[in-house]
């Protein structure tokens, strides 16, 4: 077991050293190429999705779910402007126009903020629900143990 763990850890270490996998590299290359091809859109999305980048950056390991929540809503805020860009000249200037209009950035960043709000509310609700469920399960367990002790005596609990 310990050996296996060691081997796994070694594997991880070696993959980190090597950097990205071939598939990821391919995606990266394709992405970079697309970003260069659709440079106005890329610029719009880069600045519009800035809160998501921040969220992804600050989210500690294993808590990517919050960044995902923020990204989803941030993206929803960006989509209309991407369409607006595409429906106009779809050039560099149009992209700067959209970004410089206070309305567009406000909508995109507000959407991201809304994502934070969803994260806060839903997480709170769900964790609270799960907590109560856990408490209820503990009560059920205690009751069942009492029933067993009543039926079979204290010896059933190894006392």
């Amino acid at each position, binding site marked *: 077991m310990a050996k296996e763990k060691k081997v796994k850890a070694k594997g991880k270490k070696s993959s980190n050293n090597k950097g990205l996998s071939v598939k990821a590299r391919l995606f990266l290359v394709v992405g970079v190429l697309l970003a260069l091809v659709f440079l106005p859109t890329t610029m719009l999305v880069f600045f519009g999705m800035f809160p998501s980048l921040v969220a992804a950056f600050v989210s500690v390991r294993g*808590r990517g*779910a*919050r960044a*995902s*929540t*923020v990204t*989803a*809503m941030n*993206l*929803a805020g960006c*989509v*209309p*402007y991407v*369409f*607006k860009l595409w*429906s106009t000249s779809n050039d560099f200037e149009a992209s700067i126009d959209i970004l410089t209009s206070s*309305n*567009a950035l406000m909508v995109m960043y507000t959407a991201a903020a809304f*994502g934070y709000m*969803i*994260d*806060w*509310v*839903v*997480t*709170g*609700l*769900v*964790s*609270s*629900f*799960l*907590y109560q469920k*856990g*408490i209820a*399960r*503990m009560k059920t*367990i*205690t009751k*069942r*143990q009492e029933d*067993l*002790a*009543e*039926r*079979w*005596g204290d*010896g*059933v*609990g*190894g006392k």
Partner: protein
Amino acid sequence: MANPQAAGSAAQMAPIPFGSKIRINPAMRLPRFDNGQSKAYEAFDTDNKTQKYIAIVCGVESLPRWSAAALYNKLADTSFMRMMGSGIITWPMDNSQKYVFLYAGGVGEALVEKGGLNQVSWRHPDIIERFIQPMARILKEMEDKSFRHGAIRASNIFHGSIDKNKPVILGDCLSTQPSADQPSIYLPIEKSLAEPMGRGGGSFKDDIYAFGVSLIVFLRKNDELAGVSDNEILRRRVEHGSYNVLIGNERFQSVFLEFLRGVLHDDPSLRWGLDEIFSWLDGTRMTPPPVAKPKKANRPLLLGGRRYVSPQLLALDIHKFPHDIADMIQNGSLTHWIEKSIDDSHLTERYSKSVERIIGAGNAADNKDFMVTQLRMALNPALPIYYKERIFSFDGLGALLALDIYKDQDVSYFREVLRLNILDQAVVLTGVPQNQLIVYLKQYDVCRSSLQNLRAGFGVERCVYMLCKDTPCLSPKLSGSFVHNAQSALITYEALCAKGGEIALLLDRHSIAFFSVLDSTLMERSIYDLNDDDKSLKIAGNLRFFALIQQRANDFSAPSLAKVFADSLSGVYKSYKNKALQKTIQEGVENAAKLGDLTTMSMILDDDVTLKKDDLGFRRAKYEYYNLQLEYNELNKRLSNKATYGLPNGRDAAAIVSWSISTLITLIVVFAHLSGYRMY
């Protein structure tokens, strides 16, 4: 033992019922039928009061031969006293239980009263026809049925009729152990001087010897041995032979002398048997073997101011001079006397071996009891065993031990006798037949291993019941009772419980050993529980045993016994884990207890199927409880930090919600865009 407060005058006592129709009259003693401490009383039939019986009432101290009663009943000859029944009664004189043998009355007067002389003047043919022939027939039947009488003596042989002209009737022999009440002269040398209870069952040849002495007592016109001590008579018998001593100067018809010389021979192997007796009765002229006189030394041994010329006589007195004898062994003078003065290679060999054993057991001077025993056996193997002032035969130790335990006396000598292999040596020297020898030696081995075992059912308690089959249960709890079989045990314990104050741990070491020996099947299902340290298991073992004896006793109802158990079973119910089942079982047991049904009580408690189901259910419940506890602990640990509990799940849910809304918005925007609607 018995309750002296309840004792009363026999004359004031009402007749005591024995069975449904017989009544024993304690006011009407029949002393001529007494046998040792067993006393005889008149009994009568309630339907016909002229029908008289002889009831011989025996206490535990007499060790009556209840185990031989069935065999006695099979003896068909009319010259045996006819037994009408036997069993237990409660004797109001001391309020204790006694064993009673009931015989048909009308057996007439004793042939010769104790200490008296014959009053009838039969002629030679009458003596043959009325005395010798019936006795020979009796002896024949006893030999055929392997029955040992042990109480043949002139005072216990009866005329059989008032006019004294009928064949004799031989009296009771069951009311005490064989030979226990025999005067010393009726016993062969090897049993003389042994303690009454230590004389042992002996052999059939002992009865022939006693018959011969009875004939002398009947024929003699005066008692030359009156006033002579038993010890002196034995000394003379050893020196001159029993025949010569008992005949003395009495003048008998020569035909009887021939017979008497044959049946009174001191060597059992040369003593007449039934073939010779019947040949003699048929008129065949017989030549009895000559009386063997002990070899004499060519120079006497001086000891205690007395001159001993025969090793047999020295053996009789050796216990009086242990220090002198020890010195003589150490300085070699005794060895020299035996080897040089007596020309007897067997004696020399026996002596050498005994000296080896004495030296092997330690310094002779420090181990005088063992030395005396060994030398006595070597010098005269026919004598009973002498150890620490106890004198007994190799087959009489059981009864002696039983009496000592009954009287609450020290029995440490018994352990030593077994440990030192004294019995084994004695039985080998006595020259019993090989098949019997093996039985005896095996019995002693079993006793030795039993003494090593500390568990109930073993130890000295087991030995006493093994070595003397007639010993009733000697449990202190049963003091004043005569428990000899399952039925009497149940009745006695029921009576004890009815008095109150008893607890369910009724069986003690004595009763466990007694019933283990009486019938091993009675104990085999209970013995392990009875030896357990757990009190409830012991109680369950007690109940199981009493349930079994209730079955053997034809389901005799025992409500008091059942109540004692029912009140003590709370711990036993706990062997069932299921509380509801415990309650059901308790109700069942209590209902059975009200009916005095121990068998059902035991069956309910010992139902293997229910026990197994209960055990399986308990194990499953225990497993479930354990797993629940693990889950509880895990939950408790996780819920202890409320702030972080469920956060990953919550964030996952939030992501799902967020992506759902995002997708919806995107779709709306796409549709709006495609439909030409511009929201900006």
